[in-house]
């Protein structure tokens, strides 16, 4: 039983256990013996893992890393082979490299990596949310050949993956209902408008530097444009069109309201999205994303990797929140609302609806990739790059860098999913409040301060400022909570009032004084 749930009713069951038969409560008792008295558990006790679970987690991570490495290998080899094929077909080596990279990156990066990751994420979301919620997740779909699989794989559920095929087939074979009185043209292109920008955003994200693999020079980036970040802002703004047009063309008042909600939320957070990245632009003095990734190599003061997170920690939080709101995900998913409220795609059925859903997951992947590029060094390994270049060669380094990008992207996809299943949904006024009154001023302040510091003390100064920011914020937040004598933590009114009197002027203090 999830101990979080067993904690509260256990106290009631403790009384009832005397009267009712015990067999229903034995499992509760069995678990309760592991923990402190049920109601008084502190969260820290519940969050601890046994060594077995920890090692199992590491094994799982290793397994996933191997899978990602396999995918990277396939992509890099595919690119190299395409270039070789062009060369064999008679193109000049320079042209073959150029065109091979172009064709290979569009087909392999965008079509393979992004789409495969997004599709697996649909299933991953269902399974991982199930594991988080103490249940199994979908595991009943079968392809039909499972009974012929050898040994331990016989008759397994294949980790729920056949469900992807089942979902796709279901959506393809559903009846496509088009509202009679709506704008039919817009109705048909709205899913494409939601899906396209998500996809296209991945064009400028550098997945690896230019490295030699199988004898060919490949760059895992679809387009190296001079104005990479501006392209990101522009295309992200285009994504608003999909949801607004979907809501409008459905000829449904509730869909229209859902579309308006989605549009308002997205445009509110676009400004923050841009502002948070201006700080990075100031520090690294470039808009090109591949240059940004390149510049994040090396170390700050020889110890910390030169990553954006150490320069702009506040920008990271604001960016993650704004990006989650932009893709209408995590706690900001009120426009689509699921079981709560009518969303803007209520009139869509079949594959059009499927495209909206896939677009959401593609956006998750894209923003995870962006997050990696901007704040976590892109394709850089945190430490040890020179050592690998010396001892294992440039090709190995390039491939490992590619691998590190995909791994980091995967981690941030996972983080996005975990955040979704941890927090309750924001109310709409809370969303607007957060966007305009909290994140936007924060990001503007961040820009101004970063500009001042960088102007005065250069990049090193910005690094110091960033780390100071981090320490200050952490100390400030942690200081709000006091430890009680029995080891539990809480926000106590008495202590809270005392500290508020210092921090928020004397209004509250006077109100309290007047009451007494």
């Amino acid at each position: 039983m999830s101990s979080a749930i067993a904690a509260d009713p256990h106290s009631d069951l403790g009384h009832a256990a005397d009267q009712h038969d015990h067999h229903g409560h034995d499992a509760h008792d069995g678990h309760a013996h592991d923990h402190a008295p049920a109601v008084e558990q502190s969260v820290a006790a519940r969050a601890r893992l046994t060594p077995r679970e920890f090692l199992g987690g590491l094994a799982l991570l290793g397994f996933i890393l191997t899978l990602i490495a396999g995918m990277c290998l396939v992509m890099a080899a595919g690119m190299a082979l395409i270039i070789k094929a062009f060369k064999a077909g008679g193109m000049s080596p320079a042209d073959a490299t150029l065109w091979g990279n172009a064709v290979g990156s569009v087909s392999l990066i965008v079509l393979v990596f992004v789409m495969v990751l997004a599709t697996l994420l649909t299933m991953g979301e269902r399974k991982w949310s199930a594991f988080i919620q103490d249940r199994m997740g979908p595991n009943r779909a079968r392809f039909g050949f499972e009974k012929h699989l050898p040994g331990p794989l016989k008759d397994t559920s294949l980790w729920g993956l056949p469900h992807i095929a089942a979902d796709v087939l279901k959506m393809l074979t559903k009846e496509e209902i088009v509202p009679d009185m709506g704008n039919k043209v817009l109705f048909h292109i709205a899913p494409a408008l939601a899906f396209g920008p998500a996809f296209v955003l991945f064009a400028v994200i550098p997945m690896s530097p230019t490295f030699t693999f199988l004898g060919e020079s490949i760059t895992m980036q679809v387009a190296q444009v001079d104005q990479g970040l501006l392209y990101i802002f522009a295309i992200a703004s285009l994504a608003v069109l999909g949801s607004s047009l979907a809501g409008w063309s459905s000829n449904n008042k509730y869909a229209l309201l859902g579309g308006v909600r989605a549009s308002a939320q997205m445009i509110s957070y676009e400004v923050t999205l841009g502002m948070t990245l201006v700080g990075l632009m100031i520090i690294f003095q470039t808009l090109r994303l591949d240059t940004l990734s390149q510049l994040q190599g090396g170390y700050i003061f020889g110890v910390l990797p030169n990553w954006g997170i150490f320069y702009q920690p506040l920008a990271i939080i604001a960016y993650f929140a704004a990006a989650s709101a932009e893709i209408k995900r995590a706690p900001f998913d009120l426009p689509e609302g699921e079981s709560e409220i009518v969303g803007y795609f209520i009139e869509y059925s079949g594959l059009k609806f499927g495209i909206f859903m896939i677009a959401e997951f593609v956006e998750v992947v894209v923003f995870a990739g962006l997050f990696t590029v901007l704040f976590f060094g892109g394709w850089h390994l945190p430490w040890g790059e020179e050592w690998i270049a010396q001892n294992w060669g440039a090709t190995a380094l390039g491939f490992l860098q590619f691998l590190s990008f995909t791994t980091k992207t995967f981690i941030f996809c996972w983080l996005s999913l975990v955040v979704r299943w941890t927090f309750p949904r924001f109310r709409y006024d809370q969303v607007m409040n957060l966007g305009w009154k909290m994140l936007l001023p924060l990001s503007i302040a961040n820009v101004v301060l970063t500009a001042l510091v960088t102007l005065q003390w250069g990049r090193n100064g910005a690094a110091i400022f960033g780390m100071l920011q981090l320490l200050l914020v952490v100390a400030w937040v942690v200081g709000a909570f006091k430890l009680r004598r029995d080891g539990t933590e809480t926000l106590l009114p008495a202590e809270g009032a005392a500290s508020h009197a210092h921090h928020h002027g004397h209004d509250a203090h006077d109100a309290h004084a007047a009451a007494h």
Partner: protein
Amino acid sequence: MAIKSVFVEHPEYGVRERMYVREAVRGIAITTAHFFRNLFGKRDTSTVEMTERQGANLMNTIAYPEEKRDYPPGYRGMHRLVPREDGKPRCVACYMCATVCPAQCIYIEAGEFDAEGIEKYPTRFEIDELRCIVCGFCVEACPKDAIRMDTNTHAPAVLSRPLAVHDKESLLSGPAVSHPSDALTYGKSRNSGSHGGGH
């Protein structure tokens, strides 16, 4: 009769509490811990909560139909006709169950039986399990303890509706039952001489 009033102190949350940063991090820790615990943790399999539970993972999902939950005692499930010692059903086709059934799901056709005190037996006894509302009135109404719902399983799922109509042969199951009140009359044919009862 003075109205008692309680002044409730609400803690005033400042900006730093309303940012919920610490709670957010804690929340992520909890969900992540659940994730890894459910992936690799092992349940204490010594406590028996349900029969045929396979696997020892910590997740609460019961993989029906491979794993099932025990029904409580007194569960009204699938009907069964109780047999006598000679294997025939105890039912005397009195139509009490068919009459009391609110869903009218029991269909009986009676035939003549020679033994005194029994007189009738059902030539056809059919229950449409899809109509049954599982109320148990038929069990309560039966004077001969001929129908029971103590099979401890629910009516099995069928792929077509006619398959849910169970007849006498498929309903007849369980160990033979004979009650003391049977001994007065059972075994004596009407045509053969009747001797005074008593046992």
